[in-house]
């Protein structure tokens, strides 16, 4: 049932923790955890701050060659196989979902990663944002079948 190699359970958990740690550190040093910084990037008609593009470039410089190299290895170190999204159809659901996400992102300047890492500020506003976000994730379950 599970995809994790049975003798690699602990290693699998540690790898998840350490990659999360590196990801959170990346969000922090690049200041992507700062909603105001994100909004300055999105504000192309104001004092535009290109930071987010540079962060994405920095990430893609690693992931584009990295993912291609990983493909040559038949299985991950601690799991039986790679679990990759298999959908290829560009449908209304993808576009609508992405559009709604963008509106929320533009309203506040937070996406899911920074919303989690930002909890360390202990600012009440970010806890409220996270709760609203979880409510939104939950609300998806209640949409009519045609929207899913």
């Amino acid at each position, binding site marked *: 049932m599970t995809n994790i190699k049975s003798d690699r359970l602990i290693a699998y958990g540690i790898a998840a923790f350490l990659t999360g740690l590196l990801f959170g550190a990346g969000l922090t040093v690049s200041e992507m955890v700062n909603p105001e910084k994100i909004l300055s990037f999105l504000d192309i008609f104001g004092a535009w701050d290109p930071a987010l593009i540079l962060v994405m470039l920095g990430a893609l410089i690693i992931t584009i060659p990295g993912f291609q190299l990983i493909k040559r290895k038949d299985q991950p170190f601690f799991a039986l196989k790679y679990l990759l999204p298999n959908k290829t159809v560009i449908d209304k659901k993808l576009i609508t979902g992405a559009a709604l996400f963008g509106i929320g992102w533009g309203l506040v300047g937070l996406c899911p990663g920074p919303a989690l890492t930002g909890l360390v500020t202990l600012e009440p506003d970010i806890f409220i944002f996270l709760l609203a976000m*979880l409510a939104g994730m939950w609300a998806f379950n209640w949409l009519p079948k045609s929207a899913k």
Partner: protein
Amino acid sequence: MESIMWSLIGGLFIGLAATFLLLFNGRIAGISGILSGVMFPVKGDTFWRAAFIVGLLGGGLIAPLVFQRPFVFEMQASLPVIITGGFLVGLGTRMGSGCTSGHSVCGIARFSWRSITATVTFMLTAIITVALVRHVF
């Protein structure tokens, strides 16, 4: 100039994290997906997600100490806007199967047309939203 350097360094960290998660565990570092998997748990597939999320917070605690970078956080949105924004981010990322990390960092690296389309779409609606909020209303 220094801020440009830190943007690139932060990006490299994020790229390395996503690459290692795929190399070691065979998983995509899509944070909305990892989080919704904790909300709606599937047996045997929840612990690593919680570990990753604990790591995300840990990174926010440790990075300022290790790299002598302040944790900058300025959030000016009003309460109703925060709640509306949060709700739309949650609903939208589930409906659209991903957020900035899953689509823009991992999906683009897999040359997925779905992720490229999603990235262009949410960038556009976010830019329009900020333009309306800051320059129209």
